[in-house]
């Protein structure tokens, strides 16, 4: 789904100079600076992108005679341009405004300098046009690692999260986690309506930030690890060595997944803390505990 110009103008605080076609939507997160096109070069022209007019383009138009400028802009507006954004609060030339009104092309204006505008736009598009999904689970920040706890309804995700909160870890979202993929990284947030809330069977909905303090909740966290809770099954072989890592695909990115079997006497919160610490350890070292053990066995055999 694309982005409407009204939303773009509102979010980035741009002034609307010319209101274009009502259904204009942006779905490519690239921009174009049409200086070369104003000079007459059209062999390559990314017209479907947002066109940015900075001081360079504006000054070049300024050097042209009014007649030439009109011709050049006429050619420019023959393309199906979605939107023009003028930086530095520059006043658009009357010819540009005239063609924009005729062709119903959006013209927006901002006071910031061009490079900042480009920067802002690209960051904004990366976020807004990112691939999204919603996953059932609890997202928590444990020792700085974003852990998505999943499992069937009623398996004890929220109870585990409660224990983790008590141990000073941070809740991002309970039950439903909105996940966005930006630049190859997954970011999880809570839907606005249920932010900071948690449902615990028997208690109902609790306000976590009110009960445990503001520092117990956060707005966003990367999703680094998935911990899937499931009922203990005697016939299943659980990972014993911790070397064969399993992954789950979220928006095209493989995320490491650990399956934790639930059984009375297993304190899941403590295991998740260990998993988080182990995840960080894994990032810093190339030697797994199993390799260390194997090496020690070799040492003894050589003696």
């Amino acid at each position, binding site marked *: *789904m694309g982005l409407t110009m009204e939303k773009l103008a509102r979010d980035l605080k741009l002034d609307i100079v010319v209101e274009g076609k009502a259904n204009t939507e942006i779905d490519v997160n690239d921009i174009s600076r049409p200086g070369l096109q104003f000079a007459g070069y059209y062999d390559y022209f990314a017209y479907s992108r947002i066109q940015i007019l900075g001081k360079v383009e504006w000054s070049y138009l300024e050097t042209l005679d009014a007649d030439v400028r009109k011709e050049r802009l006429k050619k420019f507006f023959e393309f199906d341009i979605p939107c023009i954004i003028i930086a530095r609060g520059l006043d658009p030339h009357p010819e540009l405004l005239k063609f924009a009104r005729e062709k119903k092309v959006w013209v927006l204006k901002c006071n910031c300098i061009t490079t900042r505008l480009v920067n802002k736009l690209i960051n904004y598009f990366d976020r807004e046009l990112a691939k999204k999904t919603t996953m*059932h689970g609890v997202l928590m920040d444990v020792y700085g690692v974003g852990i998505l706890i999943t499992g069937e*309804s009623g398996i004890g995700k929220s109870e585990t999260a409660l224990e983790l909160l008590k141990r000073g870890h941070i809740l991002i979202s309970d*039950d*439903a986690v909105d996940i966005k993929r930006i630049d190859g990284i997954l970011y999880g947030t809570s839907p606005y309506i249920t932010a900071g*809330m948690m*449902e615990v069977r028997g208690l109902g909905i609790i306000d976590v930030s009110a009960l445990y303090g503001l520092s117990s909740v956060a707005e966003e966290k990367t999703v680094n690890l998935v911990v899937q809770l499931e009922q203990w099954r005697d016939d299943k072989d659980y990972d014993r060595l911790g070397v064969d890592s399993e992954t789950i695909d979220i928006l095209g990115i493989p995320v490491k997944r650990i399956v934790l079997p639930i059984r009375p006497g297993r304190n899941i919160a403590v295991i998740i803390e260990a998993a988080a610490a182990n995840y960080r350890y894994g990032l810093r070292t190339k030697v797994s505990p199993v390799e260390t053990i194997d090496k020690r066995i070799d040492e003894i055999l050589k003696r």
Partner: protein
Amino acid sequence: MVERKVVVKNKTGLHARPATLVVSEGNKFKSSITIKKGEKEVNIKSLLGLLGLGVAMGDEVIIKAEGEDENQAVEAIVKLIENLNE
């Protein structure tokens, strides 16, 4: 998999109380059931998930179920949503 569209007609939409009714209805079935509004789809057995969708009066949602009792599940939930009157 079975899916059906339904328009929410009660005044408050899926506010906390009506949402609870939907969740407990969903929990009566073994199938995995989701509710979708716009691009967002959540597990219908999760109260916070459902509330997070922010379903208002007049919104069209899609109920999807997959499992042994998928037909009955969709049937029951659609009926419940159509008859919400709070």
